[in-house]
Structures are given as structure tokens and as C-alpha cells.
């Protein structure tokens, strides 16, 4: 089976005034469909940059990135939002829910940009929320929900458009350890249902949930097991 993600010799350089920062220097990776991977590394190791490239939020300076066989690094900038919408589900440390929208409206957001009709949006968003156990919370505003519930809304939002990969950037960073476990449990479940999940984390303990650990340092892969 072809891998879902194939990365070959990716370089990413940021210019900060005079200094050039080599965020990634020649990273190569291949990720199979249905994998649950954790990316680890100290701050400045380039793991965020790698996430941003995999998530199509930015493009590498050189190297190739194939997502489901499609060469992302050759796509024009204007095509990236479409890829993000259809293929990527983002989960952030700070949840990034829109505070004025109810849980279900937050979940509907990606569907709006995907062009679904109102009825379909409502149905899909409801199902996604139900799948993370928030059936009774659909009309609550984010500030009426606990941290764990908010992150579950964010997971529902990431799932609602049936993405091919889920990118979770420190998803438990703002949660206590019990709630963190809950969230990790959801990821485990999703992975068992066949979802490909990439998790960026500081916490050694979460790596127990994952099937493969990639460690980065100074923009290079130093460990891959």
C-alpha cells in the first residue's frame, strides 16, 4: 500500500532580519495510512514547522511533500486552503474555538467552506459531536464548556469533514492529566477506527498510545522508531 504521506529532503528556512534560521534541514519521512505517530523534540527543533508543512499551512523551500500521492510542494498557494479543508483535521493546544459560536456552529465551520448545504451541515456536525460524546452540549458556547469538552468540540470540528489525517499540536497542553487521558483515549479510538493521526507532544507518557515516535532536533530527524 502506498504511504499517505511521503516527505523527501525538506528544507525550510526563515529569515529574521539578517539571520537565517534553518528550521528544517533535510527531513524525510513516510507515514502509512492508519498510523498513530507522535512527533517529539525540544522547542526550536522544527516540529512545529514540520506540522505546518504537513498541514499545508506553509510550503517547504525545497524537497517534495506528497499527500495521498499529490505533490503539495508544487501546488499554488491558492490551492492550499482547499487541501486543508478536505484532507487535514487540525487540533490545537488552545482549542481555537470561536467564542461567540455555539459548539455545533464551531463544528460546522469547515463544512461551510466545503460548500455543504445547511441541512447537511447540521446533520454532519451533530454526528461529529455525538461521536465525541457531546450530544447534549451542542448549543453551548465555548465558555460554558470545560476544557476537556472544548477540546472535544475541536476534535469534532477536525473530524467533521472526513479528513485523511488528523494533526494534533499539543492537544493536552492546556488540560489536566485526567482530561488529557480522556482526550488521548478518543485519539486511540479514532485510530482504531482507521484514522491516521499525527500528534506533536512534549509528554513522554502519551507516546505509549502511539505506534511510532519521531524525534526531531535542530531541524533533523534524530530518532524514528
Amino acid at each position, binding site marked *: 500500500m502506498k504511504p499517505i504521506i511521503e516527505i523527501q529532503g525538506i528544507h525550510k528556512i526563515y529569515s529574521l532580519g539578517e539571520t537565517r534560521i534553518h528550521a528544517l534541514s533535510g527531513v524525510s519521512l513516510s507515514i502509512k495510512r492508519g498510523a498513530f505517530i507522535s512527533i517529539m523534540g525540544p522547542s526550536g527543533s522544527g516540529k512545529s514547522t514540520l506540522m*505546518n508543512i504537513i498541514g499545508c499551512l506553509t510550503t517547504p523551500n525545497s524537497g517534495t511533500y506528497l499527500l495521498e500521492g499529490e505533490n503539495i510542494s508544487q501546488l499554488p498557494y491558492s490551492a492550499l486552503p482547499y487541501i486543508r479543508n478536505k484532507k487535514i483535521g487540525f487540533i490545537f493546544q488552545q482549542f481555537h474555538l470561536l467564542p461567540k459560536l455555539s459548539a455545533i456552529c464551531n463544528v460546522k465551520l469547515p463544512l461551510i467552506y466545503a460548500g455543504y448545504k445547511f441541512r447537511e451541515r447540521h446533520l454532519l456536525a451533530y454526528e461529529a459531536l455525538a461521536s465525541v460524546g457531546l450530544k447534549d452540549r451542542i448549543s453551548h458556547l465555548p465558555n460554558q464548556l470545560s476544557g476537556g469538552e472544548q477540546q472535544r468540540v475541536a476534535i469534532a470540528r477536525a473530524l467533521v469533514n472526513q479528513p485523511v489525517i488528523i494533526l494534533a499540536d499539543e492537544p493536552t497542553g492546556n488540560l489536566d492529566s485526567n482530561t488529557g487521558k480522556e482526550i488521548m483515549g478518543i485519539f486511540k479510538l479514532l485510530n482504531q477506527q482507521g484514522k491516521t493521526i499525527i500528534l506533536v507532544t512534549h509528554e513522554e507518557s502519551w507516546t505509549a498510545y502511539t505506534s511510532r515516535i519521531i524525534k526531531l532536533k535542530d531541524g533533523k530527524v534524530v530518532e524514528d522508531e
Partner: protein
Amino acid sequence: MNRFLECIRIAFLSMSTNKLRTTLTMLGVIIGVSSVVIVGAVGKVGKKLVFEELETFGLTNLWVYRQWEEKPGKVEKHGTGITNDDIEAIREQCSLVNLVSPCLGKWGGVWAKYKTKYAKIIVEGVDVDYAKIDNAYLEIGRFLITDDIEYRRNICIIGSDVYQKLFNGKEDPINLQIYIENKSYTVVGVLKRKDRNFIENLGPKGSIPNANERVIIPYTIIQHQENTKDVHYIQASAYSKDMANEATEQIKKLLTKRHKGQYTYESETMQEHIEFANTIINILAWIALTAASVSLIVGGIGIMNIMTTTIVERTKEIGLRKAIGAGDIDILVQFLVEAIVISLCGGIIGIGLGIIITFILEVLNKYPFIISFVYLVLAFFVSIVVGVISGIYPAIRAASLDPVEALRYE
């Protein structure tokens, strides 16, 4: 369409989250738009009133009189340059002139007396057609007839102010005697009232004063008193108001020819006065409209300011929307729509406010309630344009944000 409706929904949502700020932002547009509506309505009412007033003079009216040259060293020719024979010639030869009347007036310091009561009056000696030319209607009695002119009958038709002052407006004045310059005249009619709120001074050399202070007598009486066949000026009517200027030229040409160029003539037409009044109202409307557009510009800057602030505040939201699939154009449209919605809401409130203020102004002044729909439509579209212009820059800024940076923004 879907996304567009969503944009409008989001716009209302973000407007409602900070109601005070939204209201203050709208205020500029509200004031500007309501001013546009009021200016439009006032202009329209003004025109209607001026037109109605001028109509009481007769819209086809024209006046011709001698130009009194005052050049040093040049001896003034005697006479008014217009005689009874000229009037006859005009009747026969000027094809565009419908009716014509010779006019002789006594304008300064003339008093009428009835028993112990006095009234300051203007004496106008005119011909039988004058009533039709001047749109002078009778309250009671009759106007001049040919015999009155021919036999120089000492009769008069009095204006409504004169009637009020001499007869308290109650007594039946017909066939009663009044005295003007120690001569007695029999009252045969009373003229209907003419309102002159806007234009007090129209007519030859701006000197038809209060039409209600007139006493009309046969022009032959004044000619007999002054022992002349001259008339002071001509008042005539053209067949239509568009012909008035040409008819005037016909008369002037004929007079010049008949007097072998000894005199030059001046003229006025009601048409000129209508145009003049319209010009003044239009100038005033433009001044007011300029003031209104200043407040619209200020309103637009207010929206631009608030949109820029909003975008900084909502950087994370923009980042998130981009991450989950919003393109630059989606973000641009979202914030542009938001600016337009603010401006348009301001515009609609402004139109409502403008109508209410116009209504109050017009009703308080007992004017007819008129709204200028052209200006309503104008105000509506202007508020959209203000929204687009003030929203485009902040929207472009929002659209060009880098999603990675925006998501990290604290």
C-alpha cells in the same frame, strides 16, 4: 451563496457582540444619510412651494418697460416709451402674445380712506384682460369691463388686505365709496388673497409688492389725471410658459421699431423667476449635500477604523478559518460584508431617521409631507459604497494574514 449568507450572519453576530461600539461606528453614516434624505425632501418641498406661489402670478406672465438710462451729460428723453397705440399694435402683431394689458401704477405713499379707516395701498391702473394675465381671482363682485375703461368710471377692485383694513373683512363693500387722493371710487369687487411667503418682490424692477394691498382701477383714469397717452409698463401673457421669452422679444422688437430706436426696453418673464428660484434652491441643496457628504466621509473613516481594530482583535479567528479551509477571498468577503452590513444598517437607520425628521419639520411648518425618493435611493446606495470603500482596506489586510502567524498571535 452559502458562504455569503454565512458572512452576513457572522457580520451580525460580531456587530451584536459590541453593541455600543457598533452604534457609535454607525453614527457617522446615520447622520450623513439622514441629512441626505432631509436635504432631498426640503429641496423638493421648497420647489413645490415656490412653484405654487409663482403660479398665482400666472406662469406665462411677462413684463416689458422702458430702460431708464442714466448716463452723465445725456438728456433723458421724456415719456415711458410705451403708448396706447403700442398696446394695440402688440395685440395685432405679436403672434406669441396671448393677452396684454397696459399698466400704470401709483406705488408710494398712497392711502385709501373709508369713513374713519385708512389703508396704505398701491394703485394699479390696468385694462380688462389684466385679471386673466395676473391670475387675479375675485372673492366677490366683478372685475373691470370695457365700459369702465372707455368712460373712465370711478370704480375700483380692492385687494384682501385693503378689504380687511377698511371694512374689517365683514361688511359688504360692493357699491360703497372709498376715497383715494380725495377722489371717490365705488368698490365693485374684492380680490382673492395671494400668499407671498417666498417671493415678496417680483414684477417690474422687483416691485410688485404685496398683491393684497392693491387697488385696481381703470388705467384711463390715471392717464387722464396725468394727461398722457403713455403707459408705465406692459404686463402680458404668452400662450405657454416656454414661449414667454420669445414673446417678450417680439414685443421689444415691435416697440423699438415703432419708436425708431429712441428707447431701449427691459423685460422680465415669470419663466426667469422660476429658473432663478430653482437655481437658488439647487445651490442651497448642493451646499447642504456637501455638508452631508462630509459626515458620510467621517462615517466611512469611522467604519474603516473599527474594522481595522476588529481584524487585529480577531487575528486568531482569521488564522483558524484559514486553517480549516477558508481561502483569502473568503476572508476578504467576510470582512467586506461586515463593513457593508454596518454601513447599510447605518444607512437604513439614517433613512428612517431622515424620514421622521423630515416629517416633523414639514408638519411643524404646515408644509405638505414630501419625501424625495431619488434621494432615498441615493442615500441607500451611498451607504453601500461607503461600506465597500471603508471595508476594502481592512478586508485586504485580513485576507493577507499568514495562517501560521495568525494562529500564534497573542
